[in-house]
């Protein structure tokens, strides 16, 4: 009997560095991938390329002076960062702000949520290959929001608007017509995104059932934000631990079913719609009054600590401040949502093809400014 034996072919895994400069990774993130042909066996993210030692700088700046630095954490959703920090300081000082300030804060925070989700949607579509068209549409919509913010506070990206005790100045005249005009303009555009992308056959084929995040894994890794809600967990800080005046507004929390990339993307589109609802109700119900409580510029809180968490567009942003009685904080710790969201990535991409890792990373919507601080 003749037997034919095939010699074992020697294969080995090879290492690719999806390096810091890359057209797809959002910001300077380096992913070290161990590939077996086309399948990924292991993935190790390397972070720290954007580290600017913000937490250390905070130990040498007064509480008010640190607000421009919080702008630059999650530079796409500046208002939410300002809000989170200022509310943590106000909790430390036991300060109550006026009603008008609370409503204004809600309006700008929700508008910024819309702007941030537009970037997430646009860059996700671009990563999947819809080369520039959805991105340009999203930036065109974002331009209108930025124009509103330009009139309110004077800057287009790093707003530095929310202050301890209220907001920097009152809303200018005529801004509520502009906001109402924007809401009317934006609603049909979200339907446009649905028609162009969400139910598109190619988009579905590329993103459904890719990167499925099971519920318990999400909770174990403390994933928060739209990525958690896409896995079926009903947790949103605006409803579960309401701060400011969120308990006075009527809005829904979209929950996903599968936890795949398509669900994470779809939740963001739905959240844009819900944020438009909140802004509409807030503008109609805006009370009169002072935009800020008169407080001094230098605060010296009693030696204590405070932790406050808010719902950033990317998840739960928390600020933990320890004060020792002087005008500088003793320790400031920032709990960034993208940090935990990124930590779950190596678990999800085991066994996935190379072309899908870009899809999974894009759907988590991480921002390196937050992760590296």
């Amino acid at each position, binding site marked *: 009997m003749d037997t034919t034996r095939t010699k074992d072919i020697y294969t080995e895994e090879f290492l*690719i560095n*999806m390096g810091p400069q890359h*057209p*797809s990774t959002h910001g300077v993130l380096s992913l070290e991938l161990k590939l077996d042909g086309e399948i990924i066996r292991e993935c190790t993210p390397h972070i720290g390329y954007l580290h600017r030692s913000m937490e250390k700088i905070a130990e040498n700046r007064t509480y008010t002076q640190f607000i421009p630095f919080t702008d630059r954490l999650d530079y796409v959703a500046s208002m939410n960062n300002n809000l989170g920090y200022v509310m943590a300081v106000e909790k430390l000082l036991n300060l109550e702000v006026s009603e008008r300030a609370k409503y204004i804060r809600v309006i700008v925070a929700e508008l910024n949520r819309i702007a941030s989700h537009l970037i997430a949607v646009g860059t996700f*579509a671009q*990563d*999947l*290959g*819809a*080369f*520039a*068209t959805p991105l*340009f*549409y999203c930036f*065109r919509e974002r331009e209108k929001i930025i124009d509103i913010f330009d009139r309110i506070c004077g800057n287009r990206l790093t707003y530095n608007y929310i202050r301890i005790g209220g907001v920097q100045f009152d809303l200018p005249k005529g801004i509520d017509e502009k906001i109402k005009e924007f809401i009317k303009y934006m609603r049909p555009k979200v339907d446009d995104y649905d028609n*162009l*992308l969400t139910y*598109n056959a*190619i*988009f579905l*084929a*590329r993103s459904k059932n890719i990167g499925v995040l099971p519920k318990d894994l999400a909770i174990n890794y403390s994933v928060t934000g739209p990525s958690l809600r896409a896995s079926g967990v009903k947790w949103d800080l605006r409803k579960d631990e309401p701060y400011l005046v969120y308990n006075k507004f009527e809005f829904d929390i979209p929950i996903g079913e599968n936890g795949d990339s398509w669900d994470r993307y779809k939740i963001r589109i739905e959240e844009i719609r819900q944020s438009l609802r909140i802004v509409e109700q807030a503008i109609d119900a805006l009370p009169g009054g002072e935009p800020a409580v008169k407080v001094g510029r230098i605060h010296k809180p009693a030696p204590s600590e405070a932790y406050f968490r808010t719902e950033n567009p990317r998840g739960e942003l928390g600020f933990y401040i320890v004060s020792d009685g002087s005008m500088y904080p003793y320790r400031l710790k920032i709990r960034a949502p993208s940090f935990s969201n990124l930590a779950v990535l190596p678990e999800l991409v085991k066994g996935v*093809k*190379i*072309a*899908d*890792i*870009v899809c999974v990373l894009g759907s988590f919507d991480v921002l390196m400014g937050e992760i590296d601080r």
Partner: protein
Amino acid sequence: MLSILDFIWVLIIGLIVLGFIAVSAMFLIWWERKVSAHIQSRLGPMRVGWHGVLQSVADTIKLLLKENIIPAGADKLVWWLAPFFAVVPSVMAFVVIPFGKNLIVKDLNVGILYIMAVSSVCVLGIFMAGWGSNNKYSLLGGMRAAAQIISYELPLILSMIIVSMQANSLSMQKIVAAQSGHWNILHPNMMLAFIVYIISATAEVNRVPFDIPEAESELVAGFHTEYSGMKFAMFFIGEYTNLFIVSAVATTLFFGGWLGPILPPVVWFLGKTYGIVFILMWVRWTFPRLRVDQLMGFAWKVLTPVSLFNLAITGWLLLK
């Protein structure tokens, strides 16, 4: 035996067509940038010339002035020849494109077969570029491109065969003449053949949603990363010339070529061709791209059975 007059006629038309190719490639690059800009609510090139018409000329001059970098360890002959293999077959296919009633360089009586044969040589160019670059990512990109183009050849050719079955000939002018009553697109099996043809043609020219070879820069380099200057321009021009060829063939086979009332035939032909080019560009700027395995699965599991089915139906209809 060719008479002297025939020879001179072929020479004249050939030179005109070569000039047309050069101008057309530049025009198509400008047209693509304008179409993409207007889809994205912006304006595109506006400075060089009226609305940026001379932008391609400026780009060509810039590319001519760039340094010619040869990668270390590259297979010199293969690397140097690759751009030619990408461009020359597309130019050769222009021999049988009927621009008008007598405006064809040479009406070969195996026109369609000639086009299919010549355009298949383009794969070699891509493959040679991938191999000759001495870059493992370019090689991967080149091999994927070759696999994609070869898989989509089959539905392409099957759809073209359906048309020649109906017209009873392989010659391009005879196919146009057979549509003098009504255009081929109006028959339902021809409509299906056109849809299959357009999808396969998009894959042949490496455009979105099938542009894995070029946009391989998601993770690995595309097959033409190691080319700079005029060699890169050759790949680029080759792509747009291919685009024109594919649309011109679609016009001839399905939309009646240069037939049409009142206006001169050349105007009809060019109008229809640029219309199909516009549709291909419109599709490019709307859809995301498919993954490699989904691409191949689509070709082998959907397009090929559909075109075989279509072939059977056409044969049955013709035999009736």
